[in-house]
């Protein structure tokens, strides 16, 4: 398969691992902030390949994991309203809210539909004019353009029965919160390829300039990730810090201005709550005045019961890279993909689920 096989070539992987081994830098701790990186690193066992040179940890890069309990509870409550079709990406189906999940609500009779894109949700709204279709808009800069597009399409098509629960988050402000926290100890960031395809490399420059942290934007195949690790180690060895791109086939410094224009046509930047990180200024999106009619929060009077964070769950610390999944007392004991306690276990991209699913043989009994 083109664009896949050459980036999984075992010879190239071996050469890169050797090159990483030759860089005269101390062993470093690197954080990736993208669920797809988490999955790829776990799936291909990359942590094990380079464990002598770098410790790879997962930051707040999984959109499902950083969505706070309150937003999930709101959507669950809305899904129960009569006449409502709750449309969602498949990832959210099994995510536990405080008291239930979408999968459970569907079993109780709620009309919950898994869609592959927000455009499908608009289509649902057009086909069911007597029902209210609410789409759960989660994700980072990557999914926001498609959701904004769906709002514009609903507006154009007169689908007034379409609305979105906007829970979108922005990556650079979360990274700022991470590096400004006193407890973070990472020597470099592997930055998300898909997000960067939209926003480009410039919004990350403060990380290198103000905080002296080396950054490399990476793709998702084994060769991509290892190349990023190599480039990060070189920066460390040379005492430099810059934002470099190891994913040139998709990312340019300027990103995709068209996609960003669509997002700002519909949404404003707003403060947002992140699970594990709390409230971060200007780290989310909210409907602007011109499109407020599509804001599900304004359209529906929903008051979910107070959110309950699962007891003993240390997903917050996992998301900040303070502990590894297996350092949580619930990991693989009370918390498994079968019966997840926290969001990092339920999302297939979550750090805990990836560690549990792919382990490294010997790691999990």
């Amino acid at each position, binding site marked *: 398969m083109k664009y896949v096989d050459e980036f999984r070539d075992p010879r190239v992987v071996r050469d890169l691992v050797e090159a990483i081994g030759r860089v005269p830098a101390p062993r470093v701790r690197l954080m990736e902030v993208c669920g797809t990186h988490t999955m790829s690193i776990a799936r291909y*066992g990359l942590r094990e390949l380079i464990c002598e040179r770098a410790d790879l940890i997962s930051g707040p890069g999984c959109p499902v994991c950083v969505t706070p309990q309150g937003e999930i509870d709101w959507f669950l409550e809305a899904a129960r309203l009569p006449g409502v079709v709750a449309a969602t990406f498949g990832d959210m*189906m099994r995510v536990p809210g405080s008291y239930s999940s979408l999968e459970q609500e569907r079993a109780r009779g709620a009309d919950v539909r898994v869609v592959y894109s927000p455009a499908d949700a608009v289509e649902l709204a057009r086909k069911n004019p007597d029902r209210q279709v609410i789409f759960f808009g989660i994700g980072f800069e990557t*999914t926001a353009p498609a959701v904004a597009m769906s709002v514009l399409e609903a507006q154009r098509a007169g689908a007034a029965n379409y609305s979105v629960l906007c829970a979108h988050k922005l990556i650079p402000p979360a990274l700022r919160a991470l590096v400004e926290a006193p407890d973070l100890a990472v020597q470099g960031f592997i930055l998300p390829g898909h997000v960067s395809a939209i926003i480009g490399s410039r919004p990350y420059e403060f990380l290198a300039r103000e905080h002296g942290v080396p950054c490399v934007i990476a793709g998702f195949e084994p060769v991509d990730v290892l190349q990023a690790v190599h480039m990060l180690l070189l920066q460390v060895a040379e005492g430099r810090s810059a934002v470099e791109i190891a994913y040139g086939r998709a990312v340019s410094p300027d990103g995709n201005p068209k996609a960003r224009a669509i997002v700002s046509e519909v949404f404003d930047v707003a403060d947002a709550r992140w699970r594990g990180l709390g409230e971060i200024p200007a780290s989310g999106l909210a409907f602007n005045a011109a499109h407020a009619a599509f804001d599900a929060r304004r359209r529906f009077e929903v008051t979910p019961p107070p959110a309950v964070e699962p007891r003993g769950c240390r997903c917050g610390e996992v998301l900040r890279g303070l502990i590894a999944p297996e350092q949580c007392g619930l990991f693989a004991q009370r918390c498994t993909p079968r019966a997840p306690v926290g969001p990092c276990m339920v999302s297939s991209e979550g750090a805990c689920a990836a560690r549990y699913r792919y382990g*490294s043989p010997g790691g999990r009994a």
Partner: protein
Amino acid sequence: MNQDLILLSHGAGGQLMSELIDAMFVSGFDNPILRAREDSGVIELAGERLALTTDSFVVTPVVFPGGDIGKLAACGTINDLAAVGAQPAALAASFILEEGLEQSLLRCCVQSLRAAAEEAGVWVVTGDTKVVPKGSADKLFITTSGIGLVPHNLTISASAARPGDAVLINGGIGEHGMAVLCAREGIDLQLDIGSDCAPLNGLVRALIDAGCDIHCLRDPTRGGVAAALNEIAQQSRVCIELREESLPVAPAVRTACELLGLEPLQVANEGKMLVILPEEQVEAALAAMRAAPYGAGAAVIGRVVQGPPGRVQLKMTVGPTRIVDRPVGEPMPRIC
């Protein structure tokens, strides 16, 4: 969380389903034959070993690239018989029809059920028909049951895998699941993926006739190769290691899985048989399978190794080894 509700995930062939089956049915109907957890129950009757199995089919859409629910209903039961080494002797078929179903569609499905049964050399000798009000079923549900005779010298069982055995499969994995998923969700990936749905009694007969000492057979349906091998690893208390570069996955299936964030190993098959037998018989088994119907793509995909019992692992092309888990519930595409 209310743990009492049946969720769709309880029917998806993954961990939730096997927990439900254990807690509800195996303990509810508690008996030694059911406890063996084979694809067919094998009972002693009048000096013969009789295999009995039953399977219900509820696929959406009813017609999909490469088959329909009728063909599936025949093949599923024939393959469950074949998985204990039995040649099918007769089938029964029950139909639950939704009010408003077109008879022309039903006729097509009956014809394909018959064609697949005839290919396997059996008749549908009895059946049942029910019609339910619109909305109580989705077009049509079919339940088939089958009986067959197990040759006396065979002891094929999911608990019979031993270190030193090889793991074989008769062709590309994940084809049925991706064909149905793409047809159901209307995902037009411009990829040509058809279901592999096929009766495999001829393939199994060829292995038996070649004198292979088959330890385990299993048709990796829902939950895919991952679920089937995890069951074998658990029941046999062995470790199974697959080699990534040996896994036969058609390029179109691979592309579709990459796009949707799914694992081919966890995607359903309806015309594949996992075969586990001693390493020294691999050449004979491959030759027999490749000469048999639906066996042209036969390949060795892994081995039973010394390792933690109950574990399935994958030796990856890029070097490391990772765990191959069963899916939890329904396959859900990822978003980003």
